[in-house]
């Protein structure tokens, strides 16, 4: 508790609650493929044929149409990017500065948002060819962060 100059009482609180989110069968397949094989899969709508990454059980556009699995190469085109400078230790999995980007994998109609690495921020350009870098197999555990980051294709951009 603290008091401001005008005698307004401020009460400190924190809501701490556990959650157990079901990824669902569809995302579980995606995440286990990522974990066990370092593979990235998308889903194709049986009606409109759009390919979505992350995968969707139903097509977001057609809504009542199911989707089927499509394996995608772990590389694609950088759509946009940013370098994060602010610090929020309660939230950030990495220490700033670090980078996010949206990468549209080859064959997919949507982009995947993830970290970017092994590249100087000034070298980043939309349209760059990027490739996925995965954690070592023993470190992968079925989370989206089993994918470490995307880096410029063929090694670091310099």
């Amino acid at each position: 508790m603290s008091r401001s100059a005008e005698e307004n009482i401020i009460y400190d609180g924190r809501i701490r609650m556990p959650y157990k989110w079901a990824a669902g069968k569809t995302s579980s397949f995606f995440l286990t493929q990522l974990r066990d094989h370092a593979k990235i899969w998308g889903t194709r709508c049986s009606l409109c044929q759009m390919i979505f990454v992350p995968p969707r059980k139903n097509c977001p556009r057609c809504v009542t149409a199911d989707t089927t699995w499509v394996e995608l190469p772990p590389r694609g085109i950088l759509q946009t990017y940013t370098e994060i400078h602010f610090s929020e230790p309660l939230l950030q999995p990495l220490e700033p500065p670090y980078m996010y980007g949206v990468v549209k994998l080859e064959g997919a109609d949507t982009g995947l948002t993830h970290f970017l690495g092994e590249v100087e921020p000034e070298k980043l350009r939309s349209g760059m060819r990027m490739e996925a870098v995965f954690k070592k197999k023993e470190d992968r555990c079925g989370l989206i962060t089993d994918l470490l980051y995307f880096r410029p294709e063929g090694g670091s951009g310099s």
Partner: protein
Amino acid sequence: MAQRVGIIGFGQTYHRSHRDDVNGVELINEAVRAALEDAGLSIDDIDAVVIGNMDHFEAVNYVDTWSVDGSGAWMKPLIKLTTGGTTGSTLGIAGYHHAASGLFDVVLVIGWEKNSESDTTGAIITCSDPIFDRFSFSGALPGLAVEASAYIKRYGIKEEDAARVAVRDRAHGANNPYAQLQTPVTVEEVMLSPMLSWPIKLLDICPRSDGAAAVIFAGERKARQLCSQPAWVHYTAVRHSHAYFGDVDYTRLHTLEAAVQELYQNVGIKEPLKELDVVELYQPYSFAGLKWIEAMGLCKPGESPRLVWDGVTDMGGELPFNPSGGVICTNCIGATGLLRIGEAALQVMDRAVGRQVPDVNLALATGFGGAYWSDLMLLGRRPW
């Protein structure tokens, strides 16, 4: 232009304690598909989407924008409402006004919850005022226990009387393939079930469910075009008075009394027991099935046990309650109030397979939640 509104479709998931096979967005999509199929519509026929749940149960902020992939709201008008336990009925009422306003003709309303994903009590506790109430508010159950014990003290009601309510709803749930709990129980089983918070025992109270419901509302012209027997919305009334739990008078459910008074006065109901044909009561625990029917004016305070033991509220009785099995059989909180509306609609439309009350003209759906708040929606076979 204002228009009259009818419900033309209803879909729901098969409610379970855990749906680990789907995430929230996918659960929502199941109900949406079911409702569209029920109404014979495609997502293109939907003009607006209304959605809601209780945020802290899944810890998703801005659920409306998060769930568009499942709700079908991509490139559609979309809005979210949330009012705690009354969320589902609040949503239904919003769906009604969307169409009644004339701004939209066909409105998809979705309520959902994945209660398995959180500590329900922990999450509900955050509804209380952090300065004055949070230290003493320990979840929905103890509050209801206070209500029940106040009621017992005032009128000499027996725990067995409440158990008879639970027996009724569990028997009804056996007729509902969507209900989470579909096995009947006896008064003795209820009385022997573990005490949770006196006088409420395990079989007196609702389960926690993962489930979703979707109801399609349509303006009159479209409703007549698309549906041979819509469930016409006659009236809605809501009271969300009380901001602190200490403000509540636990001997009476004031909000329900006030809401039904407004409803009866405006639609001209003088003898609700006779004039209503079926009630889907948002009744999270058995004692409410006694106390709150008194609040509805069906009998004098303290006299509800007689009504219940006489079978008046059973299927086949004068005024059946919860043919679906009600909240005691299924409680996916953000959907629960909307399930009441959907089930009441099925009754009016004569489509409540396996649980149909004969000759339904007027069906009342209620919502409950928050600090003892009440919502009502009255549906009828003919337009109001």
